[in-house]
């Protein structure tokens, strides 16, 4: 049974990755699962300088989902390389670093400094955080700006480059094509849907940041649809995510066109979710005599 998949230059031993921001720097989960079993680890989004993030409350539950407005709090690329990367190097699982900038130059510079670090195997550029201001969001919603920023990053790195797409757009297939044309090796989707929850007693938004990003099972049908739309319009591999709680969910994404999947919110509900999902995919392949997981990608009939 062949579970390995190719994402750009990276050969993953299996298609199960973690979703950025939901798995910390992996250390937090090493007590619950064997990190060596993961296809790849994607760490919390980093920027050149550390960020304080948004004030609390930052998360609130919604029906079958949650809103978060962490605001990309992070320790900065340098601290990451010094304090977190050494731990990750102890495992033979590829490390993909999610990152962002506040300008095209910052994006490019961040990519450059991460590429110089030994132990970083791939980059995922986040152009789709719903918790940034409207001005920032054009990185992920205006095709022209997307093309520019991805092109700039492409020139700054030789590592596998994944572009993480926003679902808050009219035409996600177009955004994926733009990323592909600008040199992305893969696209990942979906990031969170922008949402708002209001406390009717206080009449204040439940999140200090007012809006937040919706994730979890609630968004799965939207995410699967978008993967399917993107699959039919790009050639590069797709990393599918959004509400994957079980191997059945993961298989849906593969059938819709994903080459690999990322598990996010599910880690909070079950810290062993990634491994359980991997086992479930294996069981499905055995039961259905699928010998290569790649044969599932886009297998919807």
């Amino acid at each position: 049974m062949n579970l390995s998949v190719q994402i750009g230059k990276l050969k993953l031993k299996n298609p199960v990755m973690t979703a950025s921001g939901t798995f910390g720097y992996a250390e937090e989960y090493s007590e619950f699962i064997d990190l060596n079993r993961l296809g790849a680890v994607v760490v919390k989004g980093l920027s050149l300088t550390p960020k304080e993030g948004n004030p609390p409350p930052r998360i609130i539950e919604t029906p079958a989902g949650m809103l978060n407005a962490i605001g990309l709090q992070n320790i900065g690329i340098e601290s990451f390389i010094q304090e977190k990367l050494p731990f990750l190097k102890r495992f033979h699982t590829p490390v993909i670093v999610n990152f962002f900038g506040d300008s095209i130059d910052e994006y490019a510079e961040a990519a450059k400094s991460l590429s110089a670090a030994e132990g970083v195997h791939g980059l995922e550029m986040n152009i789709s955080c719903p918790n940034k201001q409207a001005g920032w969001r054009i990185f992920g919603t205006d095709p022209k700006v997307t093309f520019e920023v991805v092109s700039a990053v492409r020139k700054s790195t030789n590592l596998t480059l994944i572009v993480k797409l926003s679902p808050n757009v009219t035409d996600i297939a177009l955004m994926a094509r733009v990323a592909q044309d600008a040199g992305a090796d893969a696209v990942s989707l979906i990031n969170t849907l922008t949402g708002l929850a209001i406390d009717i007693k206080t009449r204040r938004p439940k999140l200090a940041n007012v809006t937040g990003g919706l994730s979890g099972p609630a968004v799965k049908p939207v995410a699967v649809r978008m993967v399917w739309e993107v699959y039919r319009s790009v050639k590069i591999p797709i990393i599918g995510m959004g509400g994957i709680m079980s191997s059945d969910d993961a298989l849906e994404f593969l059938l819709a066109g994903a080459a690999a999947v990322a598990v996010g919110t599910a880690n909070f509900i079950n810290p062993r979710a990634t491994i359980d999902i991997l086992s479930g995919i294996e069981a499905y392949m055995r039961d259905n005599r699928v010998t290569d997981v790649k044969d599932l990608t886009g297998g919807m009939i």
Partner: protein
Amino acid sequence: MSRYFKAEITENKKLNNDCNLLTFVPFRKPAEPKPGQFFMIGMEGDYDPLLKRPFSLFRRTQRGFQILYRIRGRGTSLMRNLGRGSVIHVLGPLGNSYPMPPEDHAPVIVAGGIGIASVFSLAERLAAARNKAHIYYGARGASDLLMVGALKKAAKRLSLTTDDGSCGERGCITDMLSVFSWGASSERNTVIYACGPRKMLETVAGIAAGRGIEAYVSMEENMACGIGACLGCVVKTVSGHKRVCKEGPVFNAKEIVW
């Protein structure tokens, strides 16, 4: 000794109108919890409610654990219906714990409402260490004062207040705390431990700061992961955002930016 386990409910006892005491026995040996630590508890069922809920260790029993919970919203309302034999999913014990006082220090515990759930095991631990605390405990009314018998036993002295005066003094527990005089010399040798509404904790922090007393407060924030991964549960401290689930829930009161 895993911190993620299934457990069986052996009792879910109604204590008053909106509080229950839940006893659960893990299917396999869990790690030993310390006073101030908490568990994330999830119910079987489908994806709504989705997230686990944080509850303090109330008491270690022979074979399992107890939590004391107040029915607040969707999760705890469903929890109330769980019968004996129901299975829950538990992550924990999590977070740091109340630091034990130096032997020559007199512990003072301040609990507001359901905050008693978190400090109860500390009171018992202190009693076992022969350094009983003076416990200040306030609630809305007499029926909201829980476990008073057991507290009496564990306390050097138990001071009660209720909003309506139906038991103990009428008023806020912090009013009582602020007028109490430890005497200048003993103040330096006092440590306060507090859990309750944020407003109460802030007042306690103010009293402690004013008198130069060390105070530890147990903070609450909405949580998703409970293990430091999501950065969802931060509070603002003098040295930046800190995670209640990891650097907390117990913080030195001086650290918190109120």
